[in-house]
Structure formats: C-alpha cells, structure tokens
C-alpha cells in the first residue's frame, strides 16, 4: 500500500517536472529573444527596407523580409488548401473512410509529415532547375507548399474523420447530391480547416531550410512572383552570422518580430477555435 502511494507520488512528480520544464524552456526562449531583441527593435526596423550597409550595422530595417514572409506564406497556404481540401474530402466522403486507398494516402502523408524541411528545400530547388526557374518568391511558395501540404491534409483529415455518418446522410435524405452534401460537410468542418490553416502558417513562416535555396534573398520587396524574396528566418540567419554585435542583436529583434507574428496566429487560432466551438454548442 505504501509502495503504491509512493509510486503514485513519484509518477505525479515526474509529470509536474516535465510540464514545468517545457514551460520554463518556452519562457527562457521568450526571455532571450525579448531581452536581446527589444532594445534593438525600432520603428525603422519594421518600416524600412535594409539600406546598403544594414548588415554591417548601418541604417535600415527588415520590412522586405516581413512582407516577403507574409507573401510567401499567403501563397503557400492558398496552394496547399487547393490541394489538401479536395484530398481530404475525397478520402473521407467520396471513397470510404477506411478503404485501402484512403489508408494508403493517409500513410503517405504521415511519411511526408516526417520529412525534414531541408529535403523539401532541395526538392523544390530541383523542380526549379527543371523548369528553369531562378530563386524567387514562386520557388519559395512551391517549396513551402510541399512542406505544409502534409500538415494541412492530416489536420483537416483528423476533423473530417469525426464527421458522423448521420451528418453525411442528413443532406442526402433531403435529396442533396454528393456535391451538395460535401458543401454542408465543409461547413461542418470549417473550424478544423481554420485551425489547419493557422497551424500550417505557423510552421511555414518560421522555416528557414525550405526557403534557403528556393526563395533567395534580396534587399527589396518583391513586386512579381519571379523575383527573389527575403524572408524572416533567413534575415535572422544572416544577421546572426555577422561578427558585429549590433547586427547580432538585430537578429534577435527580427526573431522577436517573427515570434510575435506566430504568437498572434496561435492566439487567433485558439480564439477562432473557441468562437466556432461556442457556436456549435
């Protein structure tokens, strides 16, 4: 009896230790970024493009990288959604949920989910060479799309799997066609789709490896998809590689900007998720 109680206490203590450790790591990361980045974070940093000597400690900002990242992720999410949603609808509602084909597709996406982002970068680069593309916003969009399609597909698939047979049949009973039924289902799983989009954005916007070869880097804001685009992860990477301390601190400021964007997206995911589930109750 005493042993059992002791065992319970030890396991409980381990659980608390693990949870607190994770929380501490998050807080420490935030502390480093804020303490080092905040002093260097100026209005110029978010409102100006880098001037000639920005990476040597002179004037300018990283507006190009902020906008580049936002354009890149917007394009990638749009492309990924156009691919992921039809796949999910097909394997769940047109084919049988647990058919061999559907399971093979799911398994493929599970494997793709685990592939490191640098591999997607290299694969995207190969595609670019094949089509004669240079490092550009479009190249970056393609590579990041490859990275987030598995994430988006599996997240939406989780929600789609929870749609009951009754819900699938409800519109059919009224005489709806398959397509009309699918429209109702999409409405039913829309909170899950929102979550999937925001998850993918969080993952895609912060990834450096995929854009390293594909999107290139530039000091200006791209005005066409064929132009190279700067991105926040690479802006951090390049600044952090500098031997000049001031420039290194700016890297932390850029990291802070990226973190704020990601945190904003996370909070909005939770906010929208809660709002949508409230309307479901």
């Amino acid at each position, binding site marked *: 009896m005493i042993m059992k109680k002791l065992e319970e206490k030890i396991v409980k203590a381990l659980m608390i230790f693990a949870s607190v450790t994770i929380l501490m790591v998050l807080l420490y990361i935030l502390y480093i970024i804020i303490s080092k980045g905040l002093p260097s974070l100026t209005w110029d940093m978010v409102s100006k493009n880098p001037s000639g000597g920005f990476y040597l400690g002179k004037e300018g900002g990283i507006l190009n990288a902020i906008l580049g990242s936002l354009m890149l992720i917007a394009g990638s999410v749009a492309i990924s959604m156009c691919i992921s949603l039809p796949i999910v609808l097909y394997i769940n509602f047109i084919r049988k949920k647990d058919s061999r084909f559907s399971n093979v597709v799911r398994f493929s996406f599970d494997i793709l989910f685990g592939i490191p982002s640098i591999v997607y970068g290299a694969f995207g680069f190969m595609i670019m060479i094949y089509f004669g593309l240079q490092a550009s916003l479009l190249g970056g969009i393609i590579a990041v799309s490859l990275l987030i399609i598995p994430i988006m597909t599996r997240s939406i698939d989780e929600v789609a799997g929870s749609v009951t047979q009754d*819900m699938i049949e409800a*519109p*059919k*009973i*009224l*005489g709806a*066609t398959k397509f009309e039924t699918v429209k109702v289902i999409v409405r*039913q799983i829309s909170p899950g789709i929102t979550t999937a989009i925001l998850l993918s954005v969080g993952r895609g916007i912060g990834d450096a490896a995929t854009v390293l070869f594909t999107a290139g880097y530039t000091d200006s804001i791209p005005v066409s998809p064929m132009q190279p685009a700067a991105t926040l992860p690479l802006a951090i990477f390049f600044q952090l590689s500098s031997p000049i301390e001031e420039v290194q601190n700016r890297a932390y400021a850029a990291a802070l900007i990226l973190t704020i964007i990601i945190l904003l997206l996370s909070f909005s995911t939770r906010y929208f998720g809660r709002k949508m589930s409230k309307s479901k109750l």
Partner: protein
Amino acid sequence: MRALSKDIVMNDTLTPFIDAHKTNKTHLTVENLNVHIYGKHILKKVNLSIPEKQITCIIGPSGCGKTTLLRCFNRLHDDNSEVKVTGNIRIGNEDIYGSHVEVTHIRKKMGLLAQRPTVLPMSIYDNVAYGPRLYGIKRRRKVYEIVKHQLMAVGLWEEVKDRLKSPAVRLSIGQQQRLCLARGLAVEPEMILGDEATSSLDPLASTKVEELFVKMKDTYSIVLVTHTLRQAKRIADYVAFMYLGELVEFGRAEEVFNNPKHKLTQQYLDGSFS
C-alpha cells in the same frame, strides 16, 4: 434462437398478412425484397404493403432488419457497394429502384427522421430552408413562408421565432428532433419514415413527437421503426413484426397486439425475447 428461426421457416403463412388491411389504399408496396450486406442475407423475401395516411410501426428485436428495411425505402444503401438489394419497392406506381429513377427524386418523397437528431451546421432558419433552396426556391418571402409554416406544423415556431438566426445546435435535443422533422417536411414528402425517432429523447419530448406523428397522418403516410412496444401500441394503426430478417406478421395494430396469428409475435409481445 435457432428454434425460433426454424419456427418461421416451418410456418409458411406470410402471404395472408400482406393483404391484411384491404380497407386502406396502399401507398408503398414491397415485393420479394432481399438485402445482402457483406454477403450476409439480412432481409429475406419481405413482402409488405404500407397503407396510405396511416401510421405503420415496424417492430422486432435488435438486428432483425427493421432499419435496413426502412433505409431501402429511400435508397440510403445506394452509396454502400457492399449492400445488394433485390426485389421491388414501389411508391404509388413508381419503382423506387427503377433504372431511370433519380435517387434524389425518391428521397424527396420520403422524409426520414433518424434516431439521433442531426441538425445541419447552420441557423435554425437555414436548416428548414435548406431543402426548399435545394429544389430551387430562392424567393425570400416564399422561403420564409415555408420555414414559418413547417416550424408551426411541428410546434416549434413559438419557441424559436425570436432566434431563427441562431445556430440550430443550441436547441435542446427534443427541439432539434422537431426541427429535423420540419426540415424534412419542408421538401413536401409523401411519406415520413422514422428510425426510432424518439429513442434519444426524454419522455416529454418523445410524447410531443408522437403527438405530431398522430396529427400528421392526415397528410402523410408514416412508417416508424420502433423498439418501444408501448409506443407502437399508442400510435400505430398497422404493425409489422420482423424477426431475423423476415416479416413474420403484418396487420391492423389491434389485431396484432390483441390476437397475434403467429407464435413468435405472441412471444415477442409477451416479452419472452427482445
């Protein structure tokens, strides 16, 4: 169980039950209906005539094929390639499984109320308006009239008229079931099918839905699958008793309940098995 099943085979007296209700006009006719699911023979040579504007209750123990039979009426098995349906089902003179017949056309004729209410992910108003809009009714005034009329018909109008735009999922389960009924009625079906439609409701909500069925039989032919014998006794005009995929007995409710012709029906009504 085996002995009971043998009993049916031995007693080949199914045919007389089919014509047990000659006083009423037939609305739906089932002839030699056989259903195989994953190769298993689920419905065996079912013959049945559903009378017009009456309540017909299908009773029987779990797994006897009641729901399978009901789902054949509006071709809900169509999407499952593992379900094989043979035989004839006619609504009026129209063959439900006819090669030229559109499934959506058949489903429009049969409003099905499922066991658990499933409201569509939209407002109360849009739930009822969904069907009419599907069939091309776009004028707002017209749609509003239909919604109001059907919500009144199911006694929900007074309860929801001030929150028609709020999500339907916020209604209580009983209200949701009545909303589903209103939604089904909005496409103007000829028949109402209920698959244990009150089993997930509390007694009060269940009584309300039962009362609605009784009220509606003046306009619609109603077929209800029910597990509750008391419910069948309360509202049924006709009763069909099924056992192990076969139709054992069919006739006027008072005859089946008071003077069952088949030993199995008697045993079921006595509670010897359920």
